[in-house]
C-alpha cells in the first residue's frame, strides 16, 4: 500500500485514518504491542519474537512486518501509531525516528524539519 493514497475513511493524502475496519485488521497486532508495556513481556518477546507474535494471533504479513521492523507496513496492516510506538520504544527508537521513516528522512532530518516549525501541506 502506498501511504500517499491510504485506504480509509477520507481521501486525505498521506494521512492514515484509524477507522473501524483498520482497527479490526490490526487488533491482534495492536494488543501484542500494548502487552510490551511490561518488562516481563518485553523479555518474552525478545527471546522468541515469532513465537510471541503467533501467540497473539498476528497474520503472517503482520508478523513479517514486526520481525523486519517495517514500520510503514505495520501501519498499513492496521497498526495504531500509539500501539506501534510501544515496539519502537522497546527498540530505543523515538517518535522522530518513526516520523523520518514515514516521510523518507533520517531522524536528524525529521527533527530538523520539526525544529524549523514542522512540515506543511503541499
Amino acid at each position: 500500500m502506498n501511504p500517499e493514497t491510504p485506504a480509509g475513511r477520507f481521501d486525505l493524502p498521506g494521512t492514515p485514518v484509524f477507522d473501524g475496519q483498520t482497527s479490526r485488521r490490526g487488533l491482534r497486532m495492536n494488543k501484542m504491542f500494548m502487552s510490551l508495556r511490561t518488562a516481563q513481556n518485553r523479555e518474552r518477546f525478545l527471546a522468541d519474537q515469532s513465537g510471541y507474535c503467533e501467540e497473539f494471533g498476528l497474520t503472517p504479513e503482520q508478523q513479517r512486518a514486526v520481525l523486519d521492523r517495517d514500520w510503514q507496513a505495520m501501519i498499513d496492516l492496521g497498526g495504531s501509531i500509539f500501539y506501534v510506538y510501544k515496539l519502537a520504544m522497546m527498540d530505543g527508537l523515538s517518535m522522530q525516528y518513526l516520523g523520518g521513516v514515514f516521510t523518507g528522512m533520517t531522524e536528524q532530518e525529521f527533527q530538523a524539519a520539526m525544529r524549523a516549525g514542522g512540515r506543511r501541506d503541499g
Partner: protein
Amino acid sequence: MAEVIWGLATSHVPSIGAAMDRGKTEDPTWKDLFDGYAPARAWLAEHEPDVAIVIYNDHANGIDLDIIPTFGIGTADRYQVADEGFGQRPVPDVIGDPELSLHLLEHLVDEGFDLTVFQELEVDHGLTVPLSVWTPDPGDAWPCPVVPILVNVIQYPQPTAARCYALGQALGRAIAGYPKDATVGILGTGGMSHQLAGARAGYINPEFDTMWMETIQTDPARLAALSREELIRQAGSEGIELIMWLIMRGAMNDQVAKIHSHYFVPASNTAAGVALFDNRVSQPA
C-alpha cells in the same frame, strides 16, 4: 453548589513530561516552552481549586482496543500512574473524588450522555502531563483530587466536535448542580496540530492553531461546527484531539478572560499550546 473557577487548555505530549522528569527544562530546545508556562503556573498557584476535572484520552496504556468508549468517567478514589513501557513517571498517584464523579455521572446520563464508568483506571501522560504543566513540583501529592473524563480521539468515529461542546455544556450544568460547595478547575488537554504517521507525519498548521487558540475563547460554537474530516485535514490525524478543549470550554461561562497563552513548536512532533482562562468574570446581561 460547585463553581468552575478556571479552565486550562494544554497539550499533553509525553516528551513535555519527560523533559521535566529528566531536568531538561532549561535545555535550549525546551526553555521557551517552559518559560511560556511560567505566568500560567504563577496564576494557578494563587487559585487552587478544591477539585479538578481533567478531560483527556488514553494512549494504549489504561485501556486497550477491545473496548473503546466514546466518553468515560472515572469513579475511583485513586488512579495509579501507568507504566507506559519505560517505568512510571516519578509523579504522585492521582487521588479521585468519587462523590463528585458519581454526581456528574448521574446528571450527565440523565441529560442523555452515554458515559462509560471506569471503576479502575491507570492514567497515562494524557492526564499526568497536564497536571505537571499546572504543578511542576507536586511533591507527595497533586494540589487536589481529580475526576478523569476520557474521550475516544484515536479511533474513527470520534465524537463530533459539536457533541464534545454539548458534553461540556452539560458538564457545566452538572457542576453547578453539585450540592456541596466546591471550586473546580477544569483541564482540556491534547493538541495542537500534529500528525504522527503517514507521509504527512510532522505536519504542523500554525495558522489553524492560532485561529483555534483565539476562537476557543471568543466563539467556541464556531469550532464545534468543524467536521472530523476538516479537523484531521487542518490539525493532522492526531490534532483532532483538540475536540477535548471544547469539553472544557463548554463547561465554562460564555465570557471568560484569558490570563495567559503560549504556543511553541515543536514538542516532539507536536505544536504545543497552553491557554488559561479565568471563569469568574462578569457576564453580559
